[in-house]
């Protein structure tokens, strides 16, 4: 049952941080539309996301030691009222989402300006904030149905954002449509699953759900609910055979959108999966079903190899990175499947590290798209010389994607290998290393194209503008910084993993 708070005690602003986290972008989004002035759209969006980032930092600093903040909306106590609940696991995700948004916005100003007509730009920033609101809401809420609502907010705005790519390539429209169908199926499955759970328990608050589910793991209703939630969320996560929407969506969306989605959207979905698997259902439930053996292990391993190998053969850099994302999802699922503290730490850490790594790479791709008007390898030849700053940052991102020691990507893969070894699954640890070798190949192809091939076009190509380079370099340096400075990321991942593994008791206090 939820916490015992004394009601109607004067609360300071600091106590309202959880709701402000969601509210600020949520209010700013319509505000931008009402004001309707293009010059004001970007500053407002930036201020909103920077404030959110500040709030996320404050929240993270409060819970990184293992504490929990519970916030009751409108003072209605859960399980009846909607509760927001911040612990290390979701504060870390909030930190990632708001941080990436705050970096993508300055980057977007130039990139969006070049990729979209002026009349849609105001709406773009509004939609961007809505998408961010949805992601933050999904992450912070402790109410299962509220997850669905925010999921729809983020999904609907995502479909429109992806469709904005049609000014560059009309295929963005089909990509967006396909994602709309798949995303809706996913959301429907998710809500069907929730329906089953509600039928069995009569509650929607996660902690309450967990308590009431504990006695009836044998119930068919509950088990069907679990399967639906898994597949529904799996679509959003892009678990391997459910990934078909992702490559096109990432490839044809505007660069800034791709960057934001790749770094945050699937990561938030992974977080929701974690929350449902470990907090609503508990490790004990997983032990009773064979979901891990039948779904997680095989599909995670399949993703690691098939998607990486597919990435090797791509001709479009953006598409290659999309496939690589699917492969990286495989690592995160594997960490979940190992069902241990180290495994979960690896998942959570990889979620963050891969987020910043992919952000750096996709930002670089956006810069290439801006200057060379294409993201095909053949048009990127020799850009290492003409766009040295962009290319150097892209290489740093690539190195982190491989997981070379000294970069963020190394730590999470190392943890994952350790987790596999802890269970005595050394063949799996070998497979992790082997699939990293595939990453070496596709990253190398990129390096080769950028630095070792003769330029293809005659006309001179300039370096990207500073407003794009700066965010790009901040994330690129973050890839290195978080490879050495491990207190924040490892600390948060450890606290989060412990809280998740504690099952519903992790949600009690």
């Amino acid at each position, binding site marked *: 049952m939820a916490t015992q708070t004394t009601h109607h005690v004067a609360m300071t602003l600091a106590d309202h941080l959880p709701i402000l986290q969601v509210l600020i972008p949520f209010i700013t989004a319509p505000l931008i539309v009402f004001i309707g002035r293009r010059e004001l759209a970007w500053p407002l969006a930036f201020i909103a996301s920077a404030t959110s980032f500040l709030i996320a930092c404050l929240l993270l600093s409060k819970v990184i030691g293992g504490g929990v903040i519970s916030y009751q909306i409108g003072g209605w106590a859960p399980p009846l009222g909607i509760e927001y609940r911040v612990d290390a696991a979701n504060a870390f995700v909030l930190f990632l989402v708001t941080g990436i948004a705050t970096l993508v916005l300055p980057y977007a100003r130039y990139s969006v300006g070049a990729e979209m007509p002026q009349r849609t730009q105001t709406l773009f920033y509004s939609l961007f904030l809505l998408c961010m609101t949805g992601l933050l809401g999904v992450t912070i809420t402790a109410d299962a149905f509220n997850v669905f609502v925010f999921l729809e907010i983020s999904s609907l705005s995502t479909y429109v954002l992806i469709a904005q790519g049609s000014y560059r390539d009309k295929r963005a429209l089909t990509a967006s449509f*396909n994602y709309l*169908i*798949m995303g809706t*199926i996913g959301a429907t*499955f998710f809500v069907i699953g929730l329906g089953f759970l509600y039928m069995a328990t009569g509650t929607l608050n996660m902690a309450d759900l967990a308590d009431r589910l504990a006695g009836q793991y044998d119930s*068919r209703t509950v*088990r*069907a609910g*679990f*399967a*639906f939630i*898994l*597949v529904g969320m*799996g*679509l959003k996560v892009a*678990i391997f*055979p*459910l990934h*078909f*929407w992702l*490559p*096109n969506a990432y490839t044809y969306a505007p660069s800034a959108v791709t960057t934001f989605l790749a770094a945050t959207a699937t990561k938030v979905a992974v977080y929701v999966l974690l929350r449902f698997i470990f907090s609503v259902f508990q490790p004990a439930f997983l032990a009773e*079903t*064979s*979901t891990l*053996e*039948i*779904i997680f292990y095989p599909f995670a391993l399949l993703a690691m190899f*098939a998607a990486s*190998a*597919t990435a*090797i*053969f*791509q*001709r479009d850099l953006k598409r290659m990175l999309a*496939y690589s994302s699917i492969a990286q999802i495989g690592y995160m699922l594997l960490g979940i499947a190992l069902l241990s503290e180290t495994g979960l730490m690896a998942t959570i850490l990889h979620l963050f590290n891969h987020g910043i790594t992919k952000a750096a790479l996709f930002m670089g791709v956006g810069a290439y798209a801006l200057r060379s008007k294409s993201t095909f390898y053949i048009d990127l030849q020799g850009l290492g010389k003409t766009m040295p700053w962009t290319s150097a940052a892209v290489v740093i991102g690539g190195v982190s994607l491989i997981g070379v*020691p000294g970069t963020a990507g190394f*730590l999470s893969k*190392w943890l994952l*290998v*350790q987790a596999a*070894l*802890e269970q005595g699954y*050394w063949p799996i*640890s*070998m497979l992790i*290393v082997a699939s*990293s*070798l595939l990453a*070496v190949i596709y990253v190398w192809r990129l390096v080769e194209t950028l630095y*070792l091939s003769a330029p293809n076009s005659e006309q001179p190509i300039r370096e990207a503008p500073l407003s794009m380079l700066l965010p790009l370099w901040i994330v690129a340096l973050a890839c290195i910084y978080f490879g050495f400075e*491990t207190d924040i990321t490892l600390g948060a991942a450890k606290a989060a993993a412990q809280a998740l593994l504690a099952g519903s008791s992790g949600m009690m206090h």
Partner: protein
Amino acid sequence: MISILPTAFIFIASALILGFLPRGHIRSTILLATPVLAAWHIWNLPVGIFSQVEFVGQTLDMMRVDKLSRIFGLIFCLAAFLGNLYAWHVRDLIQQVAALLYAGAAIGAVFAGDLITLFFYWEGTALASVFLIWARKTEGSYHTGMRYLIIQITSGVILLAGTALLYRDTGSITFERMTLGSLGTWLIFLSFGIKCAFPLLHNWLQDSYPAATITGTVILSAFTTKLAVYALARGFAGTELLIYIGAVMTLFPIFFAEIENDLRRVLAYSLNNQLGFMVVGIGVGTEMAINGTASHAFAHILYKALLFMSVGAVMLRTGTSKASELGGLCRTMPRTAMFCLIGAASISAFPFFSGFVTKSLIMDATANQHYPVIWAILVFASAGVLSHSGIKIPYFTFFGHDSGLRPKEAPIHMQMAMGLTALLCIIIGVYPDPLYALLPYEVVYQPYTMGHVIGQLQLLCFALLAFIFLMRSGIHPPEIRAVNLDVDWIYRRLVPTFYNIIHVATVKFFTYFDSVINDFIQLTIKGLYKLLGPETGVSRMRGVGSMVVWVAILLGISLISSYF
């Protein structure tokens, strides 16, 4: 805990400042000063473990100084100095930085007290050295460099995997003597084996060294494989398996070296053969054998560099290193020819040259531990060394049939580098005591006994005789057929035939092995492309229908799995 500056950082620091200096003599001077400074630094190091760093909950020992690491550190500095002197004329910043980082990484690896630090530097040597191959800037060298890099990086990844497993088993990442047994130790062994060019893992060596730039080959020849020898000596001394691996290593390259036309490739094969001696020494593992290995590595780096230098000088002047296009160069390159002869005498272990005082340590250690067959193989391999490195290289380059080429003598800095190396080869050969004093264990050994000298001279003379006989008979084949044979049939027909069979079989086996591996890789890539390429299979764009089918399938699976 006293903290001292890791020696590798000296190299890394000067590589960093190199880019900011004007090109020309200042840079070249820095290139020479760095190894000198580093050698002085190593010379003054106290014995012990220093510079411990915390990393992800592990303690890394950046500097573990003992006699074994010190001698390898010193010879690496010396090799870097000589190589950079030889490359004085090179103005390519990439090569210069690569050479410094390469030497720095190798020295860092030698002083690494734990496997994680070793791994960092291990990959460092791979990354830095590949630029020496790419610096040649040809299509061929690019692909060769790529293959080289993949193999070297793979070796590092295997090392990391082995380390992880070992850490799991023992809870320690200290780099100390291991016993083969667990998977972790086997992986580490395999990783060292790749770098050490064990048989069947050796192809990268003959593939890449001859493809590098002239100066690059000289530098390459010193570090990577000797680093592996050091790692094996540290980690797997006394592992009996190594004796047999080493024996095969001394043998099989001989057959290839004999028929190879590219002299730099001949030297690459003979490098492989020399490594075999060291590996045998490690396998025997007694104090004397380890001393032999360390000292042989020391001498070997010098004379192998000297041989590569002389062939490189010829290549610089004539543009080729093919035996068939060279010959008679001693007329215009007399000093290079003399240095080459000194290198050849050293590698062939002539008395009063460096190879003699070091190789005999290994041979005697093998004999002392009662491995007569291995000892015989080593003797045979010694004769082979003389034939392909000691005679073939100088004969075809500087003597033999006159190619008509009249190149200029090598540039003065190359002569200085070669002269200095040659001098060191002789000094070690004549007065080995200072080298012996550096060795990991105390030496009670007298190389210049009557038995040793006579035995070695006998071997050398007969090998020389055999070469002359082969040359003669090779030039006049009709004469052989006319000879009437009696009992001498045994050594004039049977032994050559037998030798031929072994020769052909060895060459066939290794060539076949290569082609099988190549075919396999080709087929796999083609198959994968069919399955996963952009036009076909998994990555084809799909309609909504087929996506939904997959959703249904997965829902089915997950429903089933949650009911069971």
